[in-house]
């Protein structure tokens, strides 16, 4: 998440103080990205250094400076809005854990998968609760939906991993040496 570009976007509405920028940033992101005011001023100083904003006040380093966006800043923010986010490399922590588990003797893989499935559904419940508690806040819903869809993708991946493990040839599958009994339990050994 680029605080730098989000602050720049807020300045397209007109010059603003740092404190007000912080308030508006938190409001616009559904209060889910807390910012400290120091972070806002550091970012503004860097934006000024790069020629993307200018301070309207003549009073030196007073924190009550009004910041305004420059033409260069305006070009930058419009370009940023349309720039796709950086691609995420396929190194998801969960995928790595399950890949490691597939190669380990004595690991009850369905039980490992179920523990992740449960945790992901619990997280999703927490986010859904947030949406339930704020039915009219479209910004909260947008932020929460993004997280819920991400969790949903992981849960679907866990489900499909489970189905793939169940469909593995019997030679690669045997009863676990130890571990809690769950129906359909298989262990994968190499």
């Amino acid at each position: 998440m680029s605080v730098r570009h989000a602050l720049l976007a807020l300045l397209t509405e007109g010059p603003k103080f740092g404190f007000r920028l912080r308030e508006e940033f938190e409001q616009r992101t559904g209060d889910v990205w807390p910012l400290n005011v120091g972070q806002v001023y550091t970012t503004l100083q860097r934006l000024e250094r790069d020629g993307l904003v200018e301070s309207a006040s003549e009073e030196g380093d007073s924190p009550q400076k009004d910041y305004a966006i420059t033409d260069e800043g305006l070009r930058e923010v419009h370009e940023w809005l349309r720039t796709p986010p950086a691609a995420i490399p396929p190194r998801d922590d969960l995928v790595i854990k399950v890949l490691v588990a597939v190669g380990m003797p004595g690991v009850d893989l369905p039980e490992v998968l179920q523990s992740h499935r449960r945790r992901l559904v619990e997280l999703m419940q927490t986010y859904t609760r947030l949406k339930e508690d704020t039915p009219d806040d479209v910004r909260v819903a947008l932020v929460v939906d993004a997280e819920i869809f991400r969790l949903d993708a992981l849960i679907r991946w866990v489900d499909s991993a489970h189905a793939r493990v169940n469909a593995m040839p019997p030679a690669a599958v045997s009863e676990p040496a130890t571990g809690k009994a769950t129906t359909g339990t298989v262990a994968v050994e190499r």
Partner: protein
Amino acid sequence: MIPGVELKGVSKTYGEGATEVHALHGVDLRVMPGELVAVMGASGSGKSTLLTIAGTLEDPTSGTVTVAGTDVAGLSRNDRARLRRQAIGYVFQDFNLLAGLSVVENVSLPLELDGVSLSKARTVSLEALERMGVADHASRFPDQLSGGERQRVAVARAVVGKRDLLLADEPTGALDSVNGESVMRMLRAACQDGVAGVVVTHDAQLASWAHRVVFIRDGLIVDQTRPQATAETLLAQEDSA
């Protein structure tokens, strides 16, 4: 408090000998009034069998089913039908509304079958439709409504009168995510008014509206969610510039 539904050691076997299929193995599940429980599992996991047994539409091979304090096994056919009409509301994926009846007639039908007067049944049904936000469509017919509106009517029908148990099988399956969400919001709200609810689904997003998610695999309950952290603790992480 009496559970809305309680399954104890419920097993279900279809067929015999070589064709025998064990759909459920010793399932224990108790749902209290005010609680919505999601039963989550893949196709063939036994979740729909669990719902039809909880709804007294099918008998278990062994184990007991109690709905609002009544042991279902001891009931005559008529008493069981009455229990279904009075205590249990069903919501299905394909809505199951009667095409020849108007929206309000669909909702009031179970009350009328129970001998509630026509005018009283209509008043109570309109209140239920109002709660679901579809009272404006009361005199329309099901085929004049969108999928989302039809499902809201189906939820109104399921909660009308004083029900103890609300059962839903993939109730948002045919809906887009925003309409599906509003149906789940209503199911959850209905349960919070004091009904015990069970929804079966393979969909985590739908299940996440439940207070508790129970995981079923190969006819056995293998796990369930625990009480969650508050959203604030998840979100209160500062971001850097």
